[in-house]
């Protein structure tokens, strides 16, 4: 049965397309860059002690961010997913906002805020600044991962615990061991996102491994060495993800199905207001403060610059929304294709290798991925791809399919096998079972994957800037190309508009989800 499923022609087409459109270009570029003209031997000599020291330093920074984000994310996740704290539905969405705004824009806002307040930016333009800003950006991710795991704990286990022991023991002896896989996943993913982040350390003038890769790439034009250094980073990320997989065996995270499970809510009693204060404080620091800075700067010269910013961005809305929509649909489609063989435990070697390919591509820095795609697709025979939007969609697919595969895969793992087995006994064909059983059950997860990837595609800059076809107007590109030398009020206004558009989309999709999936009790989780 398993072999039949994997050999399903539809699966084979998607797998083959992913390998052809994404994996081969990357392998081709890495291969030619590393092995052409003995450059590998030459460049290997440049991977000296300093390179590894810098990598170690970057690891320490990423470790700090991952640790802090997971700690704060766990606290926020507990309050929002395991208690009835006031306004929790609002905070569940509102606290996610920093995750969907470009880190560079938030770094600019934070630096300006420090200057407005302290007349000095030394504190923020440092390792501490990088750690603080990236922690504020990635904590929502941890909150989402850990919160979902907390929501999925079987209430009976907690109830039983309370019968024989106290609250503290339930937390440390039952709850934390149960969510350990989610904590590890949160730590590993935030670590990978942090160590791959370029724009924030570069803006704060902090030297890390990614800024070194950028320097080799953009100041010395030594693409081979930059790719070799990137390979080190990719290796590190893959090893981390490998260990995460090996030891936690694909534990559920970001689960949005969980149908049929009940969640135990804790009564905060007299700690209700302190908890609310903590949530509101985090919201104020991570969302409102940067927002205030943008508003102050946007309207310092009146409303004219805001109007100009809107006029400049207006032509980009259609393209950007269309691309994000197509990108989200494709990545969800691929994510589903990768994940469905896990249903009923029929995953085989080819299924696992597809999963791994998504993971390796996900770990490749955007610039390297962009260059790989240019070098492969920029041939007369492939011009129909390279000169149109297809190249951007290929970039989005490479970057974000892993996220949807992970989300959908975990939702599928929560569907009881008995449902499929019963249908099989009845002799129902696989395609029918997928259509009538699997898809309806995981619809909220498909929708969540769509929403998350839609927002990620909408704000994607790293690959898009390398690949966007000449003459195309795309929202994040326009903001960043106008940013250079434009008045502060104009760039802040543009950022504010992008910020607001993203917020509006999150809100709309949230209400659509709420309306369409109201039967799925945990959709909001």
């Amino acid at each position, binding site marked *: 049965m398993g072999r039949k499923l994997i050999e399903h022609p539809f699966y084979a087409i998607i797998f083959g397309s992913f390998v052809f459109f994404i994996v081969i270009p990357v392998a081709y570029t890495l291969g030619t860059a590393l092995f052409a003209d003995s450059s590998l031997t030459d460049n290997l000599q440049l991977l000296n002690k300093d390179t590894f020291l810098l990598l170690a330093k970057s690891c320490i920074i990423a470790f700090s961010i991952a640790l802090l984000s997971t700690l704060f994310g766990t606290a926020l996740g507990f309050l929002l997913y395991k208690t009835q704290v006031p306004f929790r539905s609002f905070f569940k969405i509102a606290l996610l906002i920093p995750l969907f705004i470009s880190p*560079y824009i938030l770094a600019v806002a934070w630096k300006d805020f420090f*200057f407005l307040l302290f*007349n*000095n*930016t030394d504190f923020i333009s440092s390792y501490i600044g990088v750690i603080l800003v990236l922690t504020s950006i990635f904590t929502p991710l941890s909150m989402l991962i850990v919160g979902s795991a907390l929501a999925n704990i079987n209430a009976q286990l907690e109830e039983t615990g309370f019968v024989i022991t106290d609250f503290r023991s339930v937390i440390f002896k039952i709850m934390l061991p149960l969510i350990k896989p989610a904590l590890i996943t949160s730590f590993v993913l935030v670590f990978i996102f942090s160590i791959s982040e370029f*724009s924030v350390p*570069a*803006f704060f*003038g902090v*030297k890390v491994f990614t800024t070194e890769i950028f*320097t080799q*790439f*953009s*100041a*010395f*034009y030594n*693409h081979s060495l930059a790719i070799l250094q990137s390979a080190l980073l990719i290796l590190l990320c893959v090893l981390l993800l490998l260990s995460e997989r090996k030891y936690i065996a694909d534990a559920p995270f970001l689960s949005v199905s969980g149908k049929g499970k009940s969640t135990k809510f804790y009564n905060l009693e007299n700690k209700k207001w302190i908890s609310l204060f903590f949530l509101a404080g985090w919201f104020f620091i991570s969302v409102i403060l940067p927002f205030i800075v943008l508003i102050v700067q946007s309207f310092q010269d009146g409303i004219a610059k805001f109007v100009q910013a809107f006029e400049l961005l207006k032509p980009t809305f259609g393209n950007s929304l*269309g*691309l994000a*929509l*197509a990108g989200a*649909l*494709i990545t969800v489609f691929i994510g589903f294709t990768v994940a469905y063989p896990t249903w009923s435990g029929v995953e085989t070697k080819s299924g696992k290798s597809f999963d791994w390919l998504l993971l390796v591509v996900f770990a490749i820095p955007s*610039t390297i991925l962009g*260059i790989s795609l*240019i*070098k492969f697709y*920029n*041939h*007369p025979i492939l011009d*129909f791809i*390279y*000169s*149109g*939007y*297809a190249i951007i*969609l290929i970039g989005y697919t490479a970057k974000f399919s892993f996220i949807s595969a992970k989300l959908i895969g975990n939702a599928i793992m929560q569907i009881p096998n008995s449902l499929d087995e019963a249908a099989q006994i009845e002799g129902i064909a696989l395609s029918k079972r997928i259509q009538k059983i699997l898809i309806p059950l995981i619809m909220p997860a498909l929708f969540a994957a769509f929403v998350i990837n839609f927002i990620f595609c909408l704000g994607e*800059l790293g690959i898009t*800037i*390398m690949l*966007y*076809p*000449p*003459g*195309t107007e795309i929202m994040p*590109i326009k903001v*960043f*190309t*106008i*940013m*250079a*030398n*434009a*008045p*502060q009020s104009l760039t802040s206004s543009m950022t504010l508009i992008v910020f607001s558009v993203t917020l509006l989309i999150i809100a709309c999709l949230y209400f659509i989800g709420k309306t369409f999936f109201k039967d799925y009790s945990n959709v909001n989780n």
Partner: protein
Amino acid sequence: MKNLTFIIAFIIVLITSNCNNNSNVVVVYTTVDQIFSEPVLKEFESGTGITVKVVYDTEETKSTGVLNRLIAEKDNPQCDVFWSGDPVRTIILKNRGITTPFQSQVANDIDMVFKDPDYHWTGFSARARVLIYNKNLLAAADVPRSIFDLTKEQYSGKVAIANPLFGTTTFHIAAIFTAVGDEKAKQFLADLKSNAVVIATSNGDVKKRVVQGEIACGLTDTDDAWEAIKEGANVGIVFLDQQGIGSLIMPNTVSLINNSPHPANAKKLMDYLLSKETEAKLAKSCAQMPLHKGVEIPGNIPSLDNIIPMKIDYDKTAKKLEEIQYYLKEWAEN
């Protein structure tokens, strides 16, 4: 099934909608800030009917994204014209065989010093490297007049310079090496470092820090400095070393890409960019100094006739830049 068909149709329409079948096109890659370059290119488009497709660069990538893209596209160029804000990037492209000669008749009266001897690039509308200072923090009498004054104790911790590995600052430092020799230039940089110079992320960052009063003065480009003045900041500008080595002048450059897809339109655009009209527009929009004689410019824009330029050979300076890059990396990072 119906929904799936609709989704696939939507994606196909989106993918194919941007495929270009129009041959009356010219593709431009530019490192010049979009806010200044876009109006010029739009006017060319409306005047000639040739569709201009542009790829702009970003401050976030230190304006190197376009250059890396041109290098990656070398075997099958998509770009026709490269409009650079300085000669450094163009010379890199020339050395990699990405540009091809084109001698525009429109630029005949532009001094040969602003042209590649083989016409791989031609200069127009120049910027200069200047000192921008905050008038609240530095009295007129205390403003440095030479770049070498910046190493004096009175300016300790008060001077900012952009990361010398990127942009025009790289070229400025290379020009100083060419003008005064390696030994003196290295001593200058060492002294600057001892004097607690602030290394900013970009020229824009230097401007911002001076405007905000975080730093008293810094080295930047004229367009950044004039933009600050236009925004009403209480800052002043000084052309340094008018009694000495002179100020570095950096022309915009325009190059024809080797094997470009639309060479005829490319040449028309190059002629347009190299014209007096474009220089007049850039003088008005971003205080760039015309290289043609007799271009009408606003009264507050300096003329090259009144500035002592640093006497450099752009090709030699670009070679020097490659020589000193590892030294500059070491200087900036340690």
